[in-house]
């Protein structure tokens, strides 16, 4: 992705939701997209699938194996959806059609994107269900979503997503609605899929714990901007952007017991506030005069580590 800009055109004017995002997702990597609600991570994901509403304007390039997704026609991108790029959503309760058997919902994907027929297809669906850890798949195939638990439904959603062995899976907070124990299983499942089937994953979350657990590199977003990218451990050990540092400080640790929890002062700007300078400036404890006027460019700090701050090289 290079210089992706997304804005929404409304009766009240154009609102930029995402500005100048650039990052790479390599083969076999799991890239985390982190940020607070409203920072533009879901919008970015939808942009990759070209599923934004009609009033969205995209510019920049999204290069997928040599083809620019931003420039594609609807017909071209529809062929990619489900077969080369797929998406998993947050809410397992409503993400499956309540009137269709769960097996059929996986089957639809294969029917549309492969030449398999009848029994072969049924067998494929059953194999996929087994791969994602569903017990007794032949019987489960014929059940309806309301007969399954949340964790199982999410596995079905994952099965639908991996059915055609996509090159890229976008997981938008797939574990947020699940209990912690199931969460762990689903994360492990995604890691296995990444390793064994070779699908890259873009993992969107606002939970740093999960991100650290599963991602190989992380993109931190704030107010529509990408503020820092780094390999996972680098980000946790050497954060180089005031926002990232603030987020790290805000994560409760075992020794914070009894102490007041740290909170980044101020609040996230609304989409209608467009500042000329750095978006984080109002809340930043390191901010100085230049930050108000000018948007920082990316400072390269090392191997795949970049930060969008004038002070990136000097922060603790």
């Amino acid at each position, binding site marked *: 992705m290079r210089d992706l800009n997304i804005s929404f055109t409304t009766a009240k004017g154009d609102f930029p939701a995402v500005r100048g995002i650039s990052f790479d997702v390599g083969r076999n990597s799991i890239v985390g997209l982190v940020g607070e609600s409203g920072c533009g991570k879901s919008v970015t994901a939808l942009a990759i699938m070209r599923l934004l509403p009609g009033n969205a304007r995209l510019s920049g390039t999204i290069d997928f194996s040599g083809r620019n997704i931003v420039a594609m026609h609807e017909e071209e991108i529809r062929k990619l959806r489900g077969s080369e790029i797929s998406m998993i959503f947050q809410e397992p309760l409503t993400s499956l059609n309540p009137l269709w058997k769960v097996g059929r919902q996986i089957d*639809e994907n294969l029917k549309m994107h492969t030449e398999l027929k009848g029994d072969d297809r049924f067998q494929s669906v059953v194999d996929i269900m087994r791969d994602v850890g569903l017990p007794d798949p032949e019987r489960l195939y014929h059940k309806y979503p309301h007969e399954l638990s949340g964790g199982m439904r999410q596995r079905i959603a994952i099965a639908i997503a991996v059915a055609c062995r996509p090159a890229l899976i976008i997981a938008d907070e797939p574990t947020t609605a699940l209990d912690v124990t199931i969460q762990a299983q689903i994360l492990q499942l995604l890691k296995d899929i990444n390793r064994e089937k070779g699908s890259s994953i873009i993992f969107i979350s606002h939970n740093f714990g999960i991100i650290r657990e599963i991602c190989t590199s992380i993109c931190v977003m704030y107010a529509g901007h990408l503020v820092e990218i780094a390999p996972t451990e680098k980000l946790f050990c050497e954060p180089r952007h005031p926002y990232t540092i603030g987020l790290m400080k805000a994560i409760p640790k075992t020794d914070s017991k009894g102490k007041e929890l740290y909170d980044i002062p101020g609040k996230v700007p609304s989409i209608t506030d467009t500042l000329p300078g750095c978006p984080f400036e109002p809340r930043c404890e390191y901010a100085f005069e230049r930050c108000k006027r000018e948007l920082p460019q990316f400072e390269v700090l090392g191997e795949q580590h970049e930060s969008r701050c004038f002070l990136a090289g000097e922060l603790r």
Partner: protein
Amino acid sequence: MKRKRVSLYIGISIIASLLAMMVVSLFYTPYPVTEMNRDERFAPPSANHPLGTDNFGRDVLSRIMKGSQTAFFVGLIAVSVGGLFGVLVGAIAGYFGGMLDEFIMRLMDAMMAFPGILFALMFVSIFGVGIRNTIIAIGIMSIPSFARITRSGFIQHKEFEYVKNARVKGVSNFRIMFSHILPNVLSPIIVAASMGFSSAVLSEAALSYLGLGVQPPDPSWGRMLNESQVFITLSPWYTIAPGIFITLIVLGFNFLGDGIADLQDRQQ
């Protein structure tokens, strides 16, 4: 909560009985429908003629039975036609929204603002009387209510995650609308169909009463009402019979529709 099921049961019983009568009439009626018997004109209800005879000595019961065929036939075809187009139009309006939606809904509003019977009268005046045009006119009248119900169902469901999931799989809009969303929206459409049926029967009776609907020799309860009104003092049963049956079938479908709607409410 057995109380709530009463409507359903009443509706089912009435319609089932009338349906049974109609099916029987396809093969057998106590007397041939057109057989006239001068000696038995205006005969009151008796063992031979449970509903009496009319001014030509024809058996009223047999004519009522035959008339049920028209009632069901007109109702079925009109509701199917109206339902098919109404659902199609409502689905498109609800799913795609925007200017298309606005345009379609204004059209529907215009259709609903026009009194149904008046429209039907206009239609048959222009295109001629008879069963075919009656069905078409009634069918057109029933399009708006199907369109509204379908549209609101689609507007609701298109935001649901399973629709997003289907898009994300690369499913075409057409398939999403008719394979995914429509089955989920079917329940209120079925209720509308039941209510639509009773409307259709009533409209047909009204048109036929005015002589503009079903023409002789096709039987019709509405036309029987017209034919019998002159003789109301001589043979009241000739008037009462079609009146009762029209009321029954309308009540039956209304109870049925209510009953199904109650069932759905309880499922929620």
